[in-house]
């Protein structure tokens, strides 16, 4: 008996409303993040993630209020990512009731942000989110920037549309060394395909990183979650399969339990 594989639904929140389609029965308002968070909590979510996709600072203010209201009634850990650029941004989210923050683009621009956040609040609050894609042509092919990428995976920004020339496995390793407490590995190739997580990428990162690893991108059926855990993921994150009711958290956990994985 050891720590359970965590199942984490992710909600995209824009100016206080859940965006991307949500198609749940028995919800008064499918766009209310607080109500959805409570619903997932009741269904057995081991953690919840809000991704703040607000374009404006007013929208992000609203997210702070959503976090506050969620923390009033949800008693499992809550991670908030999106728009976190400074130690003060982290402080604001934690004070509102978040337990962890997800950092992505701002850390690519300025890696010291990772050690600043970890130094102030501890590694356990910091989830480094890595949006990675396979380099066309495989390792060292150069991608958009012509950079040398030994692992064959490149860190991207802007939803996978923009390359950075940074090797994704090396970046995960560096981030963990700087103090990231967890790596959220999002495959931009698998994202939205429902064809399963990128298992090879998970294994490659797992081999080099000893902080917890969250698999993201590509979940379609219960067996996909089992495969991700067997590839070395400590947690599995998904959005649309849960929002559209394609899968319930219970179904995913039943499959994992059947495969001999530890779940809560």
């Amino acid at each position, binding site marked *: *008996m*050891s*720590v*359970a*594989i*965590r199942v984490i639904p992710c909600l995209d929140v824009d100016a206080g409303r859940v965006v991307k389609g949500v198609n749940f029965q028995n919800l008064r308002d499918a766009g209310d993040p607080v109500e959805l968070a409570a619903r997932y*909590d009741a269904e057995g979510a*081991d953690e919840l993630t809000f991704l703040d996709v607000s374009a404006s600072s007013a929208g992000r203010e609203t997210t702070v209020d959503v976090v506050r209201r969620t*923390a*009033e009634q949800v*008693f*499992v*850990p809550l991670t908030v990512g999106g728009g976190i650029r400074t130690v003060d941004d982290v402080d604001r989210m*934690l*004070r*509102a*009731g978040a*337990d962890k923050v997800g950092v992505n683009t701002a850390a690519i621009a300025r890696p010291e942000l990772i050690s600043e956040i970890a130094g*102030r*609040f*501890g*590694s*356990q*609050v910091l989830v480094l989110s890595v949006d990675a894609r396979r380099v066309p042509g495989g390792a060292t092919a150069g991608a958009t920037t012509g950079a040398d990428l030994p692992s064959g995976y490149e860190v991207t920004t802007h939803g996978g549309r923009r390359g950075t020339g940074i090797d994704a496995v090396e970046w995960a390793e560096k981030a963990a060394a700087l103090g990231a*407490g*967890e790596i959220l590995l999002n495959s931009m190739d698998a994202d939205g395909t429902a064809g399963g997580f990128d298992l090879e990428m998970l294994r490659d990162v797992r081999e080099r990183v*000893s*902080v*917890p*690893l969250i698999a993201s991108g590509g979940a379609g059926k219960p067996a996909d979650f089992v495969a991700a855990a067997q590839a070395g993921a*400590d*947690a599995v994150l998904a959005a649309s399969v849960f929002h559209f009711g394609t899968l319930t958290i219970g179904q995913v956990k039943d499959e994992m339990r059947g495969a001999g994985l530890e779940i*809560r």
Partner: protein
Amino acid sequence: MGARVVVLDYGFGNVRSATRALERVGAEVTLTADRAAAQDADGLVVPGVGAFAACMAGLRAVRGHEVIGRRLAGGRPVLGICVGMQILFDAGVEHGERAEGMGEWAGTVERLDAPVVPHMGWAPVEAPAGTRLFDGVEDERFYFVHSYAARTFAQGHDDKADPRFSPPLVTWARAGTPGHGTRFVAAVEDGPLAATQFHPEKSGDAGARLLENWVRGLG
């Protein structure tokens, strides 16, 4: 009216979560660093998030260590959570630096030795016979997130060997798998002093029951 609980606000806790979870189980909660209030409450909760040395320094800055000491001398309940538990031991070693703790219990808080650290997520515990804290939730999982822990617990430390006192009840848990991991102290029940390495305030219904068990024993 519920038991009056103070959550010590010394700058190093997820105080909002702790406050809300205690309110959920019927406590009347005040979040403050005021010493008189902390001294006077039926129960005092000491949360803690971050580094051992920083938390201990923060606690000293509000003279929280004195409040804890006085409360315990008078047999008044204190509950430490996460780093709020770690600082009750003799010392903590993080990044090779040793920081003195409260010394209520013998032992040093050290880095976990497991394939994946931080130890993060829902893990089972080995609660001892006679536990009050885990009553009804002995077989549940609780939410842990930490890289350090006390890996030993010395019974019979100081005056606790006195036969008039019951020995501390220690609950264990494991980071990693058998053979590839560390066994560590997950909770202690020692007279008025109780503590958990995990976060009951983030452990769903199981955590709420544990907090309820603690609150029920107050005043």
